[in-house]
């Protein structure tokens, strides 16, 4: 090896690493939002590890509860909590569905399929650089998840959708508070359509494309999914309007506070296709 390279070996390795990463960064530009093969492979290797750590943590927690003599109480409590959670989900789905159904036959069909309309998942990780952007859940394509499946919190309120990379046993959820997220919404009482985009910073969002001449949108009004984006099923609660401002722009500046809280995302429900409100069924 020439002396020049020997003397500057460390600096050259450093420069090579920087150059390699800059190339990696520029290679992604043509891919857009799609993850690269390298990113998919890293996710496939590390996501099960993440899942295993959470599982070990939970197992250790359960062992400790049993050790101090509260095992039965804890199990009973867990069963009841899950039951309450399921009942809340079913109740929310039933109410949304029934509000749109007038025929008895349609209602009966809806009730029959509620049991397979969603799957429960635990949140096993959040975006390290910004918890308002994405989360990782411990359920994947094995349990019927598909890209764009809608994700709800424990009270049936919209949290986000499944995005790539989608693993067999893990999935990434883009939260509606991510600045790259867009959700077709409608105001509950004034029935004004718009697009909800996250601000990616504070956990809030903006209701876009409401004309400044529109006077019907008011503060504290509830937003529901419109279903017009053909990703999220209609009627899911999304958030409330915080403030409505009109400036020189053609559109109003409407701030929105989503219903879900990042810190409360322990367990979520993913809507599956073929159910009454399954996002996939409408695509």
């Amino acid at each position, binding site marked *: 090896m020439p002396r020049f390279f020997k003397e500057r070996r460390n600096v050259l390795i450093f420069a090579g690493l920087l150059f390699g*990463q800059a190339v990696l960064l520029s290679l992604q530009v043509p891919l857009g939002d799609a993850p690269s093969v390298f990113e998919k492979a890293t996710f496939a290797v590390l996501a099960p590890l993440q899942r295993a750590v959470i599982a070990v943590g939970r197992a250790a927690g359960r062992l400790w509860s049993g050790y101090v003599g509260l095992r039965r109480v804890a199990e009973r409590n867990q069963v009841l909590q899950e039951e309450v959670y399921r009942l809340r989900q079913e109740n929310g789905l039933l109410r949304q569905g029934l509000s749109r159904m007038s025929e008895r036959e349609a209602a009966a069909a809806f009730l029959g399929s509620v049991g397979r309309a969603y799957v429960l998942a635990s949140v096993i990780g959040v975006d390290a650089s910004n918890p308002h952007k994405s989360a990782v859940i411990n359920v994947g394509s094995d349990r019927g998840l598909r890209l764009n499946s809608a994700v709800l919190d424990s009270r049936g309120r919209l949290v986000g959708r499944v995005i790539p990379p989608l693993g067999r046993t893990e999935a990434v959820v883009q939260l509606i508070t991510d600045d790259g997220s867009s959700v077709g919404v409608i105001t509950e009482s004034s029935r004004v359509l718009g697009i909800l985009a996250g601000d990616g910073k504070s956990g809030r969002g903006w209701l876009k494309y409401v004309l400044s001449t529109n006077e019907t949108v008011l503060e504290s009004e509830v937003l529901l999914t419109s279903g017009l984006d053909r990703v999220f099923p209609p009627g899911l609660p999304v958030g409330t309007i915080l403030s409505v401002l009109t400036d020189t722009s053609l559109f109003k500046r409407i701030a929105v506070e989503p219903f879900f809280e990042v810190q409360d995302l322990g367990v979520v429900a993913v809507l599956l296709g073929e159910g009454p409100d399954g996002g996939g069924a409408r695509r």
Partner: protein
Amino acid sequence: MRRAAEVGGGAIAAFLVMTLLAKVHPLAGLVLNPFVVAVLLLGLIRGEVVGSVAGAVCGLVADTFSLGLFGIAGLALTPMGFGAGFISRKINVWAASRLFVFFFFLAAAELVLWGGLTALVFGRAASWSGGVVLVQPAANALAALGGHRLFEKVRAGHER
């Protein structure tokens, strides 16, 4: 081979700590970044080459579980890992107070670099999550200092 195992082990350990932190509280990962701590320690203990390789690997792992472009965290962590190894050979940083200040400046520089790269690539300011992120350099420096003291104790025990 041993160095590669150390880098891989450091990255995986940081990833596992990040997972546990997120489980404790979703915002905990904003206060303490285990990837920064791992890169600082590897750079200081094993030198600038291992530090910069650890920075690249930890950055890629961090970006895999983060929306956005793959490589920005690596570009910020790599110079920090190199700096930790290179500067610590040039000046005496081994006293606890000096080491804390040394780690703090490197962690702060990494945060500024990450924010600058994010602004440059995306054309908008990075998210500082209401200022919570600004606590990160001090928390990272404190954790790295604790990690280094632990490493020294373990090494002294082995030598005895």
